[in-house]
C-alpha cells in the first residue's frame, strides 16, 4: 500500500504559492509532516483528503487517482482536520451514528457496534448522550478522531491534532493513534517536533511549499550528530553571533538566551557540543 505524490503544486487566488512541486512517497505506518505555520501542510492534507484540487501534479493511492476518483478514495479515507465544527445541539452518539451513515455503514447493527466501540476507545462513552455544544476542546478532538476511524480507514489524514490539548490529553491521543497505525497509511501533520519524535517512522519537513528534507527521523538525526554546539550568551550579543555562525536556534533557559549552531568542526569560543535532536534537524532546515 503506497501513497505517491508527484510534483503537486497549488497557488491560491491571492498569489500565495502554497505547494511547489511537492513529491513524496508514503507507505504503511505513521508518517510525520513537520513544518512551520503557513508551510503548506494543511493545503497538502486537504488535497490528499479530496477536499481541494491542486493546480498541477498527481496523487495516487496505489492505482487510484485521488484527484479524479474522489469517491472510491473517500470510502477508505479517514480525515481529522485542523479545525472543524459540529452541530452543537446533537449528542455525541447521535452525531457519530450520522457520520457512520454518511460513510456508508448502513447496516444498523454493524453501526451500533462500531459506534459503541469507538466511543469506548475515545473514552467518550460516559458522555455519549451529552450535547456536543458542551464539549471541551479535548473532548471534541476525541470525537473528531472517533468519526475518522468509523470506516476502519486505510488512509488516515490527521492535521495538527494536538494544538490546543493539554499534555495529558496529548498523551492519551498518541496512545490511541499508535494502536491504529499498524495497518494503514497515517499522515500526521504538526509544527510540534515532539509529536513526530514520539510516533513517526518516516517524516518530511516542509517549508514555504517545498519539501526540504525527508527520511527516517533517526537517520536524519544521525546526520547531524557531532555538529551541534551551544552556548549561553547575553541578549545584546545575539545579533552579532547570528552574523558570525550558522545559528539554528536561539532559545531561552531560565530567562537567558542560549544559541545553538551547526558547525563541521568545534568552533571553540565557549561552545559546548550537544547531542543532535530532531529539533535541531528541524530548525536547521527552516531557518535557512
Amino acid at each position, binding site marked *: 500500500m503506497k501513497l505517491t505524490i508527484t510534483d503537486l503544486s497549488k497557488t491560491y487566488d491571492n498569489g500565495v504559492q502554497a505547494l511547489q512541486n511537492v513529491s513524496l512517497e508514503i507507505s504503511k505506518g505513521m508518517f510525520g509532516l513537520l513544518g512551520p505555520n503557513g508551510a503548506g501542510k494543511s493545503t497538502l492534507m*486537504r488535497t490528499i*483528503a*479530496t*477536499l*481541494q484540487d491542486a493546480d498541477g501534479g498527481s496523487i495516487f493511492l496505489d492505482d487510484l487517482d485521488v484527484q*479524479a476518483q474522489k*469517491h*472510491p478514495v*473517500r*470510502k477508505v*479515507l479517514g*480525515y481529522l*482536520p485542523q*479545525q*472543524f*465544527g*459540529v*452541530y*452543537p*445541539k*446533537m449528542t455525541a452518539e447521535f452525531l457519530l451514528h*450520522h*457520520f*457512520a*451513515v*454518511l*460513510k*456508508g*455503514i*448502513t*447496516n444498523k447493527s*454493524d453501526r451500533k*457496534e*462500531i459506534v459503541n*466501540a*469507538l466511543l*469506548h*476507545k*475515545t*473514552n*467518550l462513552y*460516559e*458522555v455519549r448522550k*451529552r450535547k456536543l*455544544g*458542551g*464539549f*471541551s476542546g*479535548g*473532548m471534541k478532538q476525541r470525537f*473528531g478522531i472517533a*468519526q475518522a*476511524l*468509523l*470506516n*476502519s480507514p486505510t488512509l488516515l489524514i490527521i492535521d495538527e491534532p494536538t494544538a490546543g490539548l493539554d499534555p495529558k490529553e496529548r498523551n*492519551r491521543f498518541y*496512545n*490511541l493513534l499508535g494502536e*491504529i497505525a499498524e495497518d494503514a497509511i497515517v499522515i500526521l501533520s504538526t509544527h510540534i517536533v515532539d509529536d513526530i519524535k514520539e510516533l513517526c517512522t518516516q517524516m518530511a519537513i516542509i517549508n514555504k511549499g517545498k519539501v526540504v528534507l525527508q527520511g527516517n527521523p533517526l537517520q536524519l538525526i544521525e546526520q547531524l550528530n557531532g555538529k551541534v554546539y551551544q552556548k549561553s550568551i547575553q541578549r545584546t550579543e545575539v545579533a552579532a553571533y547570528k552574523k558570525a555562525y550558522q545559528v539554528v536556534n536561539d532559545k531561552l533557559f531560565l530567562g537567558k538566551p542560549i544559541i545553538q549552531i551547526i558547525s563541521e568542526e568545534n568552533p571553540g569560543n565557549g561552545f559546548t557540543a550537544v547531542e543532535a535532536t530532531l529539533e535541531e534537524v528541524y530548525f536547521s532546515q527552516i531557518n535557512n
Partner: protein
Amino acid sequence: MWYEIFKFELGYRIRRPEAYVFFAFLFLFSIMGVDFIFQGVEIGLMKKNAPMVIAKTMGAITGLCMVMVSMVMGVPVLRDYQYNTEALLFVNPITKRDYLLGRFLGSFTVLLLIFSGLPLGMMLGSQMSWHPEEDMLAFNVLSYLQTFGVVVLPTLLFGAAVFFVTGMLSKKLLVVYTQGVVLFVIFLLTKAITNEYLQGLLDPFSLTTLTQFAKGFTPVELNNVPISLTGILLHSTLFWLALGSLIFVYGYRRFSFSALASQPAGKTKIDLSVAETAPLADLKIPVALVQDSFQAQCIQLLELSKYYTLSLLKETSFWAIAICGIIIILINSVNLGTVFGVDSYPKTYFIIAELQEMSMFFFIIILLFYSGELVWKERDIQQYVLNDATPIHDLTSLASKFIALVNIYIVLMLTLMLSGIAFQLYSGYYDFQLGLYCSGFFVEILPYLMLYTLAAFFFQVVSKNKFIGIFLTLVFFIVNIATEFLGFNHSLYKFGGKPLGVYSEMNGYGHFLAPYLWIKSYWMVFGLLLLVLSAVLIHRGTATTLWRRIKGMRHRITPPLRYTVVSLLSLFLLLGSYIFYNTNILNTYWTNAQEQVFRVRYEQELKPLEYFPQPKITAVQLDLELYPEERSYILEGTYTLTNTTDSPIQEVHIQKRIASHLELTDVVFEGGATVDHRYAEFDYTIYQLLQPLEVGDFIRMDFKQTYYPKGFEEDNSDVQLVYNGTFFNNTLFPSLGYNNKYELQDEDERAVYDLPERADKAKIDNPNELVNARSGGDSDGLTLDISIGTSKEQTAVTSGQLIKQWTDQDRNYFHYQTAGPIINFYSIVSAEYEVQRDRWAFDDSTTEEVELAIYYHEGHEYNIDRMMEGMKASLSYYSEHFSPYQYQQLSIMEFPRYASFAQSFPAAIPFSESLGFVLDIDDETDVDMAFFVTAHEVAHQWFGMQVEGANVQGRNFILETLSQYGALMVLKSAYPQEKVDQFLELQKDIYEKERRKATSEPSLALVENEDFVHYNKGAINMYRLQQLIGEERVNRALQRFITDWRNYQGEIKSTTRRYPTSNDLLEYFRAETPEDLQGVVFELFEG
C-alpha cells in the same frame, strides 16, 4: 470617541455589498411601487402620485422590507461576538455610550441611505412613460420627501431601535433573521382590532393610520392634502417613537461589555472530571462494512432525512414562526365565507381556503429561510470538512435535506388541519371531510411548495452565501408573479403551473383535477432535474467559484447519475408533449395579445352591421342531449323567425357562439338560403334567403349544435358544463346579428388600438337601443319548448312547465313548455338534486296554484325552509301590490360555487351554492339573507320579466333597484323593523366603501353598471321614498307602471316598439308624490 466608532461602522458597512444590493432592490422595486401595491385595487378618483397614494405605497414597501431593517440593524453588536473581536475591543477604554451610539448611528445612517432608494425610486417611477397623463398630478418633490419623513422615518427609527436591541441582547443571528417577520406578524395582528382608532394607532406601518387620516376627505380633496404630522398620524408616530425609545433605553441598560464576552446561556462546558477515566486499552475496534449499493444509498437517504428533519424540529426559531403563524391564522379565521354580513357554516372548504390564504405567507418564509439554512448548514458550522471527506453522494445529501423540509411542511399542514377541525368542533359543526382536508393541503399546496423549495435549493447552491441565495429566490418569486400580469402564463413555461380550481361540494374538483395533476407532474420532473443539477454544482470541500464548479461538473456525473438524468429528461419531454398536445393542438391557445387582436378585428369588421335589420325570434323548440360525464351536448333546434320590421328582410345573420369545439351545422331555412361565408373567421354567417321574408311573416330555421370538449385547455376555467352542476343559458345558442359582448372592454386597451370609447350602457335617448330590452335583443318574447336528456342520476330544470318526464336507455328526459311568451333569456341546469316541493296560491278561490320547487344538493338543507318562505311571502306581496304572478311554477336550482350570484329567469332562479345554501343565519344577530335574496330574485319575475327596461342608461334602476325595493318590503312584512334597519345599515356601509373607490357615480336614473348605486344606494333611496310618501303610494305607482309597460299587454307598451326607461318610471313616482316633496324625489333619483 463615539465618532470614531461611528466612522468605522459607517466605513465598514459602506464597503459591504449588502448595502448596495438592498438599495438597488428597494430602488427598482419602488419604481414599480405604486402599481405593485395598488394592483387590483381601484384608486378611483385619486391620482397615482397623490400624497395619500405615495404614503400608502411607502408604508407598504417599508413593511415588506422590514427584513432588511432587521438585517442591517440587528448585526452591529452581534458582529463583534460572531467574529470574536469582542475580546480585543472591549478591553479598551471605550464607554458603553460611545460604543452603542457609534454602532447604532453608523448602521442607521447606512439604513437611511439604503431606504433613500424608496423615494428616489418612486420619484423616478412617476416620471415613467407608462403612466397616462390624467392619472398624475404635477411632480412635486416635496410630497415625496415630506411623506417619507412622516410615514417611513418613524417606522425606521422604531424598527432600528428594536432590532438593534434584540440583536445585541440575543447574540443569535437567527433571531436577527426572524425578527423582521415577527414585526410583520404583529402588523397582521393589529388587523383584528375592531376599534378603528386603536387599529390606526397600533399599525406599525401606518397603513390603517393613513386610512383613518383620510377619513374626513373626499377622494378629490385627497389629491391635494399633504401628509402632515397631525391628528392620528401624530399620535401614532409619537407612540411608536416612544416605544422605540423605551426599548432602546432598556437595551442600553441591560448591555454590558462583560455580558457580551460570556457565552450565551446553555453553553456551559461539561465537567471534565467525568471524562477522565482511563480508556480500555485492549478493546478491539471492529471493522464495519462500508456499502455503496443502491440499497445502501436508499438507507442513507432515509437516515439523513430523519436527521435533518429532527434538526429542523429542534430549531427554536422554527417553532416561533410556526406558533406565530397559527395564532394569526386562528385570530383571523373568525369570519368565514361571509356573504352580505352573514357567516356561512364552517364548511371544510371554507376553512381550508382561509387557512391556505393566511398560511401561505408563513410557508414561504419558512421555505426561504430554511432552504438556506439546510443547504448551508454544514458550511455555516464548519462541519463540512468532516462531511465532505466521507463518500456520501451529493445527491443523497441534498435530496435528504429536501425531504426534511417537505416533512416540515407536512407537519405544519397537519397542525393547520387540526386547528381547522378544532375550530369546526368549537362551532358545533361535525362534518369534517378529512379527505378534503388532505387534498386541500397535500394536493393544492404541497406540490407548489415542493417546487419552489427545489428552486430555492438551486439558487442557494449557485450563490456565494445563504443570504444571496434567499435574495435570489425572493426575486424569482416576484418575477414569477409579475410575469403573470404581463400575460406570460402558459403552464408549460410558467414555473409551477397554476393553482387547482375552486372546490365545490356539488362537483368536487371536477374536470380541473386531471390537467392539474399532469402539469404538476411535469414540473415535478423539472424540479428533480433541478435537484440533480444542484447536486452536481454544490460546493464540496474548500469553496470554489461557481465557474470552476461548472467546469468540474463532468467529473461529478457518475454513470448512474447520467442514466437518471436521461430518464428524467425523457419523462419531462414526454409529459411536456402530452400537455402541449392537449393545450395547443387539441385545443387552441391564444395569448392575451392574440385574443385582443381578434376582438378588435371583430369590432372593426362587423360593428357596421350592428343595427342591420333582422327578424325576431318568436318561438324556440329544442332537443338537447346533455352528456355530463363527457361535459358535452348535442342540440337540435328550430327557431321561428318573424319579421317585425317595416320592410322585407333578405338576409339573416347568424352569430355562432365563439368557442372551441363548438360546431354549428345543418342550418336550414324554410324556403332555402344561400350561404355567405365572408365573415367565417368570426363564426358570423350571412344567409341570403331565396325568398325575402315579408313584413309580419315568419319562417323556420333548423340547426344543429354540438359541443364536445377534447383533452384539456390551458385556461381551464369553463365552469358551465361540469360533471355535476351544469348551468348555462341561451347565450350558448346561435344568435342573430352582431354581438357587442365580443368587443374589447377595457378602455386602456381600446385606446391602444384607436377604438372609440365604449359606454357600458347606451345613452338614455339612443333610439337604437330603446327598442331593445337587452344587448342584441334578438327577440321581443318567445315561447320555449325544450326537451332535455341527461344522465340517469341527474335532473334537468329550465323555464316552463314540466309536461312530461321519462327515462329512455338509461337516461332521464324532461320536456318543458312555457305557457306563453317569455323573454329571450333562459337557463338550463342539470345535476343530482334533492327536491323540496310546495304550493302557493294567491287566495283560496279561482287563481291556479303555483308549483314551488327547490332543487338542491344533498346535504345543503340548512336554509331550504327560509327560501321556501321567501318565495311564498314574495309571491303574496307582489301579487297583491303589483300584479298577478304570470307563470304556474317557480323553481330555485342550486349551482356550484364557481360563481356567487343568484339570477332570475322566467319561473326559474338558479342560486349559487355559496350564496344562500350554506349560510349560518343566526335569527338574533343576522338578517335572514337567504330569505332576502330569494325575495329579490322573485321580484325580478316582475321587474325584468313582466316589465323589461330599455337597454340604455337607467335600465338597472328598473330591474335591480325596484327588485331591492320589493324584497325590502317583503322583509319588512315578515321581520321586525330592527332587521330592516340592520339591513339598511349594511347597505350604507357597502355604499360608502365602494363609492370611495369608484371613478364616477351617476344618478339612479342614469345608472349604468355601478353595483353600489343600483343595489345599495337604490335600496336606501327607495326605502326613503316609501318613508316619505308611504308604501301604498309607491306600490300604486309601480302597479300603474307595470300595467302600462308590461310586455305584450302593457297599455302603452302594446302601442310602441320601445321599452320603458327610468324617465318613464319616474313619471309614475312623481304622479304619486305631493308638490312639496317633488324636490326630494328629484334628489333621490336624479341628483
